[in-house]
């Protein structure tokens, strides 16, 4: 099992980066052995679609759980569709976050915890890019998701409308990309 954590640096002693799509690094940890690998996030300075691209990249690395500070609707939907468990609101050092996860101190999210475009414009630029940032999440299947925790029908309607809008936007982006790929030959 692997846990991917958004990080401000490439080590277990780095802090959890509050951004998911535009974090500087990911540290991917085996919680049993604490062995880890680091991944520079090529989407950190992306103009748009960073959440989706980053989510696809992480899904392709075989992680089953994401620990991060904040996760927007596009990234959340992509991660959920690839079968990954998302835990946001995580702070502190990477090492401590993994320990907290192992001891059951972190709960997975039933929905994104921030709006689209959270984190845009935050942080320092690195001035480099490795291209793409796409990945694949094959073979993991779907993870059942909990229903939104609304306390009244009005709140549930509002939550569902927000989710539907985010999903429609994501679907549009995916369909555009499919069209591009199919034209490419």
């Amino acid at each position: 099992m692997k846990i991917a954590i958004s990080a401000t640096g490439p080590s277990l002693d780095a802090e959890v980066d509050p951004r998911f799509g535009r974090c500087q690094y990911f540290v991917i940890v085996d919680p049993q052995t604490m062995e880890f690998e680091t991944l520079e996030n090529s989407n950190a300075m992306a103009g748009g679609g960073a959440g989706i691209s980053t989510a696809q990249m992480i899904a392709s690395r075989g992680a089953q759980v994401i620990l991060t500070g904040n996760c927007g609707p596009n990234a959340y939907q992509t991660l959920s569709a690839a079968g990954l468990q998302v835990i946001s609101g995580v702070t502190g050092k990477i090492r401590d976050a993994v320990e907290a996860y192992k001891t059951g101190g972190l709960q997975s999210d039933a929905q994104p915890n921030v709006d689209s475009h959270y984190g845009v414009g935050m942080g320092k630029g690195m001035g480099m890019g490795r291209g793409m940032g796409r990945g694949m999440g094959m073979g993991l299947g779907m993870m059942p998701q909990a229903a939104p925790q609304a306390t009244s029908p009005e709140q549930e309607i509002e939550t569902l409308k927000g989710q539907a809008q985010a999903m429609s936007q994501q679907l549009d982006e995916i369909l555009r990309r499919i069209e591009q790929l199919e034209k490419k030959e």
Partner: protein
Amino acid sequence: MGGVPGADTYAPQMSREQELDFLKNQSQTLKNRLEQINSRLKELEAGGE
């Protein structure tokens, strides 16, 4: 899982076919979930639970 910080900054490239397959699966998943959400919205807006 090398454990060497900064040693792995490579993101694997997918083939066109793999990406198409991935995106088509994802779009179908999203369409299904949108249908479920819209169906629930109709229920709620009609005054049911």
